[in-house]
């Protein structure tokens, strides 16, 4: 029962820390996870996305040199994850972000410690939020609950 969501990140060779890249330096999640606010899927950053910033020596931290060398050798698309929703489910990541749902509402804040997955999404939890039964304090507008809003 239920479709539990366990994103399978391929732990690439690139050492990465969410805590260093998040709010502390004024970066939005969508800056790297492009599409998170704009399109149906939230994507992983490509090497080019990393290099936008990392082509300059950014800090004086001792690790930065090894990081830069690893990055230089890395794949064009160093990270990937599996879309765990079934084919017949339409989930538009951007529309949820646009509706004011914060990233941590669904994904928690575990990723700041670089622990991924563990979110449990099933139809019941979708429906509950869409009906306005959960996240009452956030004051989301009730969303569509007819089948064809999310299924095809």
């Amino acid at each position, binding site marked *: 029962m239920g*479709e539990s969501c366990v994103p399978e990140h391929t732990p690439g060779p690139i050492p990465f820390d969410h805590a260093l890249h998040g709010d502390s330096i004024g970066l*939005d999640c969508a800056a790297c996870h492009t599409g998170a*606010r*704009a399109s149906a899927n939230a994507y992983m950053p490509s090497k080019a996305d990393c290099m936008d910033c990392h082509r300059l020596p950014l800090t004086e931290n001792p690790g930065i040199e090894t990081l830069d060398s690893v990055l230089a050798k890395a794949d064009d698309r160093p990270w990937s994850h599996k879309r765990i*929703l*079934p084919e017949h489910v339409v989930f538009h990541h*951007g529309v949820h972000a646009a509706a004011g749902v914060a990233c941590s509402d669904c994904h928690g804040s575990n990723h700041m410690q670089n622990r991924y997955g563990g979110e449990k999404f099933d139809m*019941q939890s979708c429906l509950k939020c869409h009906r306005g039964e959960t996240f009452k304090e956030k004051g989301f507008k009730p969303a569509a609950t007819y089948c064809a809003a999310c299924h095809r």
Partner: protein
Amino acid sequence: MFRYLMILGLTLFLPGLYALGYSVYQGPSAWMVDSQTFWGTPISLFVFWIGLAHAGTLLSAIFLALDIKLDRRTALIAELSTLVSLVFAGIFPLMHLGVIDNFYMVAPFLDARGNFANVRSPLVWDFCCIAVYALLSLLFFGVHLKSREIPALDKYRKPLAWLLFPLVLWVHTIVSLDFAATFVPQWRGAFFPVYFIAGAILSGLALVNLLICAEGYRVRLLERLQLICTWILCAIWIWDLILKGYFCTSAFIFAGVLPQLRMVSVIREHRLGRIFFSVSILVGLFLERYYLVSPTAASATFGRIDLGLVAFSVGGFMLLFFGIRRYLNRNMEGAGSYFGEVDGTDLAEAEQEEFEKENFTGVRGIQKLRKGFYMQPWSSEEYRILRFPLLVGFAAAVLFSVWVWSQSVFANVDLSIANVIPLLYPIVAVVTAFTLCVRAYFVEKSFDMTRREKTLCVVLLVLAAACLGTFFAGGSSEKSAKVLDSQPIGVDTPVSQNHARLVWNARCATCHGTDGRFNEKFVREFYPVPQKLDLQRLDSLGADSLVKVILNGRNNMNAYAGRLTPEEALGLVNYMRTLAEMLSENAAPESVKEGEK
């Protein structure tokens, strides 16, 4: 005798089993499918067997409720045949489904996904009615068997009979609504409930008469009723003919004309003759259902698989029914007194004659009338037993309706009371029966069960719980195999302002800020401060060169050629103008503010 019948059943059943397995594997294209309704043999067989399943409860319960006496063994045979018929009536709608694994979605329970069956559908009513009918028939049969040992239980039979009386009619009414509620022109018929009930009663009677013949005796009352039923059914067929100009000749011959031979005493008195009437009626009614279910000229013909399915049900019925009969004969103490091996045939007949006389000529009635027979309303024994459980049942039905209405699934559905009514009585009946059982268990001191019965009860309960659990949990769906990495480049089409804004926020705002000023936190710490956004600069550079800058990069600005399409870049340039305009509008008051400082 039973052994030979069982062997006959087995020889029919085994090839039938193959047909069933093939049908399940192959799906609905295995058998003849009607080109318009997509239905076929399994549904005909379902209607046929559910009709036969009326024999037991009809005869036993209704006769009991109406004080028409029927001897115990006939009643028990009838009840047993109901149970066995129900098994086959249940198999066919299940196996005819396209996706059998999803059958649980028909049950009107909430499932873990928050879905709910469409209670407007006659199929949902069907499912509930048949499930409840099977449960209560089992209970009725069990109580009947048990009441021999524990006389205290006997007084529960009549209340149960009164509970089953409407239910048995309800079931077939609902089956008829499967057809009558549709737009298929051949199934036009607000009279279908009566029509189907009449057909069911006739087929039930024919089956019981046939089984009684196998037992080696006869009940004249049932034979007469059977004959009368054929007349009524013929009258209904005539109305069908008047209404639609459609007439099933073969059914009329088999179930309408041939049974009239009963009026010839030579045939009537011969056992083979009696078997012939019953078989002829059964064949006729099967043909009738067959033509009813597949109204348009079939694009395929009645094939081997269809025959196999018929053989499966007939053989299976024989195997199961006579198997149980044999088992009971052997393993139950005093089976004779249940199933009448010790009664002489003549004795039974004489008895029967007497009953009939009493029932129909009103001798008994006149006697009672003379005695000043009168009963206060709502004062009968069965009513007193049934009173409280019925109340619970009605309360449950009302609660169920309210619950159904509150389901969010029906937010976009015009749900009316007519959609829910057919579900109510089965709920009333099942809850009432359950309450009755619980009550009987606690009230009757003499009631205790053998170990085997207790195990049976526990197993049944566990099975029921497992069923409910499965219905609730539902199946799992296959997850997508799609792997997402970085965002692929989109199609190069003109983008709207809104889309450009989204792209800006995702790609540019890290440095340039969502409002076109800098993202202070980021830029101050790490990065060279980007150029200021103002209209004059934008105008002097021109859109084309700005697009080039975005795509190819310049100085500290990164190249986005592989990640943005030229159109997207152009959209960004346009959006930059909007941002610059907004900035210049806001600049004036801000410069004043700075001046104040």
